[in-house]
């Protein structure tokens, strides 16, 4: 696969609508690992009444040719209904949620709380020695907050990965 330095190397957020049958996630993940594609983030959950179909959101990266190949490979999996390359289609919303545990006392504790407020992170658990912050937003915003918390006693992070959809009336 072409190297990261290639000029047309890009990130792509791809949504895939699949039949919610056993093994479908393994098929998708196996496709990525078997063919050496990158997975930067992956989410999956049933999205329809009765749980018949699931939506997988995968953030990947590669050259344009590789990303086209990823979409074609996904599309030929039997349980795949539809695919959307949200990055290519245009404006879209991509959000993820993170839980972050900060263990700190004194100044660092109050600084963490102050920053959380500025970033609109919510406190969902607190003890005298710790907080759990919950934050929803773009991957970049979460990355930035995590980086700020690190010197302030960040002890644990749990992130959901990206959920995404196109802006406006367009649907997958």
């Amino acid at each position: 696969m072409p190297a990261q330095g290639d000029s047309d190397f890009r990130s792509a957020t791809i949504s895939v609508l699949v039949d919610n049958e056993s093994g479908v996630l393994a098929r998708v993940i196996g496709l990525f690992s078997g063919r050496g594609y990158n997975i930067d983030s992956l989410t999956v959950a049933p999205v329809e009444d009765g749980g018949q179909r699931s939506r997988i959101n995968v953030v990947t990266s590669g050259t344009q040719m590789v990303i086209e190949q990823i979409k074609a490979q996904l599309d030929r999996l039997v349980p795949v209904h539809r695919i959307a390359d949200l990055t290519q289609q245009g404006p879209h919303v991509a959000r993820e949620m993170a839980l972050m545990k900060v263990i700190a006392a004194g100044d660092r504790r109050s600084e963490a709380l102050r920053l959380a407020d500025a970033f609109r992170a919510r406190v969902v658990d607190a003890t005298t020695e710790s907080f759990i912050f919950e934050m929803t937003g773009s991957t970049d915003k979460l990355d930035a907050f995590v980086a700020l918390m690190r010197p302030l006693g960040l002890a644990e992070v749990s992130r959901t990965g990206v959920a995404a959809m196109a802006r406006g009336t367009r649907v997958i």
Partner: protein
Amino acid sequence: MSTSLPAADADALQPGAEILLRALKDQGVEVVFGYPGGAVLPIYDAIFKQNAIRHILVRHEQAAVHAAEGYARSTGRVGVVLVTSGPGATNAVTGLVDALMDSIPVVCLTGQVPTHLIGNDAFQEADTTGITRPATKHNYLVKRSEDLARVVHEAFYVARSGRPGPVVIDLPKDILIGPARYSPPSAAPHRSYRPQTEPDGGAIARAVALLKGAKRPVIYVGGGVINAGDAASEALRRLVQLTGYPATSTLMGLGALPASDPRFLGMLGMHGTYEANLAMHGCDVMLAVGARFDDRVTGKLAAFSPQSRKIHIDIDPSSINKNVPVDLPIVADAGRALSALVAGWEADGATPDRTALAAWWRQIDGWRARECLRYTQSRAAGAIIKPQYAIQRLHALTRESGRPTYITTEVGQHQMWAAQFFGFEQPNRWMTSGGLGTMGYGLPAAMGVQVAHPEALVIDIAGEASILMNIQEMSTLAQYRLPVKVFILNNRYMGMVRQWQELLHGGRYSESYSAALPDFVKLAESFHATGLRAESVDQLDATIRAMLAADGPVIADIAVDEKENCFPMIPSGAPHNEMILGPEHEATAAGVADAGLALV
């Protein structure tokens, strides 16, 4: 197809195994290649009680899959395999990957431990759907009796639709025993898998325009044309006739165009002809049909056909722009797209650029004049047989016999010589393991072909090393009186390995000598077959004639020149115009760069 039963009967509860057989019958299945075991005994019991479906008992599950591949490729139908759980399923894996790589429609039924034991490391349990997920086009684990019939019908649809491939249905034993209701094949479209078969009209018109304007065109044909059925080969022939354009074929596409057609340049790729590879390198418009630009064909990607605009017809969108960027992709069934191209060309009243085409043919004829496949066979009594000559005589004498002839091969030099020297005039007469390159493919594949065509002449062109990989199938041939002929080009080496060691590894012949070979004549006899041997050129024709005349299976052990190499050769990673020609030709290519050594 469907033998509809009375309504009351259709609704009755039946054991899963009966439902399974009924579904197979409704799918038009006549033959199953299989091997029994504990988990599939209910199916064997159901087979015992009926006569509509014939079971061929192989001697190894890998062979069952190759036999089904041979059956499928020679008939255009889906081949069916039945194996037990655990080792039965794992033994089948090589065959499944082989069918996946070469796009052969196969449905493989695997036994599984009862559902309540799955995950318990039960006796002969294997995670068959996990193991075969990357080895199949799709697979199923049937967990509820009510899904059984539907899954079987869907599996056949998936195996044969779009780009064909192998499908596994994993069947827990309790599902095979438990009662279920039958459901016939549904006419409703599949909920998610609906491959595009009709070409886009605009794209066809653009393709006609590109082809019409070509000055140095070439048509590059792949196995997809064979898969698309006779109509595809016919449309291709018509297109070549209308345009007068030169055409070449991959290993898998041989027979789509008649080898005797003067516009056919022979096979391309690593061991393709000089003229085919140079035409690909120098063309200005390339029409690729049902071919996938794999590394054995393209050589060095960066230098592949640098000046051409490329049209690519393929039913699998993921084959397009995978290795080589193309200018005009057409996602469609090869037959429909070719017919549309022919119709478009005719409606347009298109004519080729005659002056340019004549000049292009002069250049190609110049390349042809190099006679890249030339070799010298001494006719002196006692002279050693050249492998190329053995294939040419086999070809001539089978033609003379006038019988429909099907050729399978193992993997190695003999396979390439068969591709180069056995001229195929029709599609579906040539079965070889192209994508996976599986030694041991040829004998079981021939068995499957012979089951489908009992009257035909079916010959496995083999190497002495490969044939030992599934030699046990001689016993199957004997049991079912399948008169397959095994034609061994015995060079006492894993010749293809030896060739690479000679050319790329300083002549260090590490572990490539075929030591301690059996006496193939006695081996044949011990399997109730006829054994023949030719040791020198004067014995060759008589041996081939005796082989062709024999009623039953034959092994013909043909001693050939141990040192012969297969040329032309484009070393891995080299561009098409850096081909090595044989010793009969003046030196052409420089030595292979070290980087080439890393490539396979």
